[in-house]
């Protein structure tokens, strides 16, 4: 069976720098994949290529049996990809609830006329959007924070709010870009549990970029390691952690 997401020989150059070099990745449906690598390895670039923020120079990206390489970001998102960002991109002035509602309305649409006149589906869908958003906030333990402005939430909560917002898109594939960045060990442990929970409960194919090795090793059965834009190892966490190339990338020569 084909994977949910396939990258075939994807290359991305920025001027003379090759950020991603002939990368081929296959993610099967229902998998939880960790993407690791030293700083500047090109991990976030891979996410940016998948979500259409950068045009792909060479190669093809196939999602759910369809080529998505030439599509615009919003079209790719509508096909069922959701992501979070390394440095948060919430709407800071809107409340936590409004942040999630903004994502929810993608599958609960009503017409412009209904919006102008507050008639027809408006009432039904607005309350459905609100209920659904509250459900995702509750899942991420943010129910009490629903009416607080997103920008005033503690950092860890903002991270979880971004995941809640991504889940509200009802994606088939969830891309988490360093969800544990800036968290203390307890918060990381909590987050690992949460990621496993989400993955199980929503049967969601998930890809995680992470620097916290304990998170990746504890959570992801399938790990890919990148360095200088290339895939250098792939397999179970143990296989990857003991791979000589990976050790060299992280610790240098002479191990």
């Amino acid at each position, binding site marked *: 069976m084909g994977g949910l997401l396939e990258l075939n020989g994807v290359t991305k150059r920025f001027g003379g720098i090759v950020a991603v070099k002939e990368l081929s990745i296959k993610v099967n449906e229902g998998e939880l994949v960790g993407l690791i690598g030293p700083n500047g390895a090109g991990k976030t670039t891979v996410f940016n290529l998948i979500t259409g923020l950068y045009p792909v120079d060479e190669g093809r990206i196939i999602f759910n049996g369809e080529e998505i390489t030439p599509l615009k970001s*919003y079209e790719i*998102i509508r096909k069922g990809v959701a992501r979070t960002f390394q440095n948060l991109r919430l*709407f800071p002035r809107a409340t936590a609830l409004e942040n999630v509602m*903004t*994502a929810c*309305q993608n599958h609960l649409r009503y017409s412009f006329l209904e*919006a102008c006149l507050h008639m027809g589906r408006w009432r039904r869908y607005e309350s459905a*959007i609100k209920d659904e958003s509250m459900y995702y906030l509750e899942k991420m333990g943010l129910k009490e924070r629903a*009416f607080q402005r997103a920008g005033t939430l503690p950092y860890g909560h903002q991270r979880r709010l971004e995941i809640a917002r991504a889940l509200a898109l009802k994606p088939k594939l969830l891309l988490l870009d360093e969800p544990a960045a800036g968290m203390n060990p307890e918060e990381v442990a909590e987050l690992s549990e949460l990621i496993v929970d989400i993955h199980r409960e929503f049967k969601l194919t998930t890809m995680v970029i992470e620097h916290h090795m304990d998170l990746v090793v504890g959570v992801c059965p399938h790990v890919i390691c990148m360095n200088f834009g290339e895939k250098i190892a792939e397999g179970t966490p143990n296989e990857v952690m003991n791979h000589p190339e990976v050790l060299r990338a992280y610790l240098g020569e002479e191990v």
Partner: protein
Amino acid sequence: MPTYIEGIIILTCINSIAAMGVSLLTGFTGIFTLGNAAYMAIGAYTTAILTMKHNLHWLPSVILGGLLAMAIAYLIGIPTLKLMGDYFAIASIGLGETVRLIIENWEPVTRGARGFPGIDSFTTLPVALTFFIILTWITFNLIKSNYGRAFKACRDDYLAASLLGFNTAKYRILSLSISALYCGIAGGLFAGFMTFLQPTMFDLQKSTELTAVVVFGGLGSLSGTILGTTIITLIIELFRPISQYRMLIYGAALVLVMIFRPEGLMGEKEILSLIRGMGRRGEHGRPT
């Protein structure tokens, strides 16, 4: 002919309609414009020409004027809204001046710089109030809907918005088109109020005033926009007898708001939610 007080109320209604259009564009979608007087001009001249030369009733004329302004905004928006931030504002100045110059030089149709006299005086107080109330109701509905949230998402972070599945270009163009429709209708009503049109009525100063009242009232607050428009219109009209000082007072009002309320009179809040918030605070004794 309306009395002096009626006149001021009518003018406030007209200015509020135009400012609400700019508020939707600048306050809620985050697109600064310095050329929306052009859409007022298009609405005003369309209404004048349709009623005077083609003997059309004023109501369809005003609406057609608004729709023409909307169509032109749509066509102009496709290329220019690719510009972000200040660059669009600069392009909009160009548009505003272009429209004004076309009207000034297209004499057979617009009667040029000498002005367009003798328009029917159809904008009575009930007419202005009806338009104002209906359009205010629609605008409040719109911002409290999926479209409102999409506009705000484009304003706060267009990258995040497109990664939530929003076609941001489409929403930006939609916002400009709606704002042009409002300005066009306001222009049509203005023609029926003044009964005389001149290209200089829709110059850069008018465009700046429209954006200034929106900033004055608070970006992202519709009631702030209406409040700001009312105050500025009153300042400009009530001090007309001492006309040398009136721009001074207008300037001073703007500077005072900049110093004491840099977020605008209402910030991002609406009057109704403020009143409700106060009630809630009183009941539970805790700040919200």
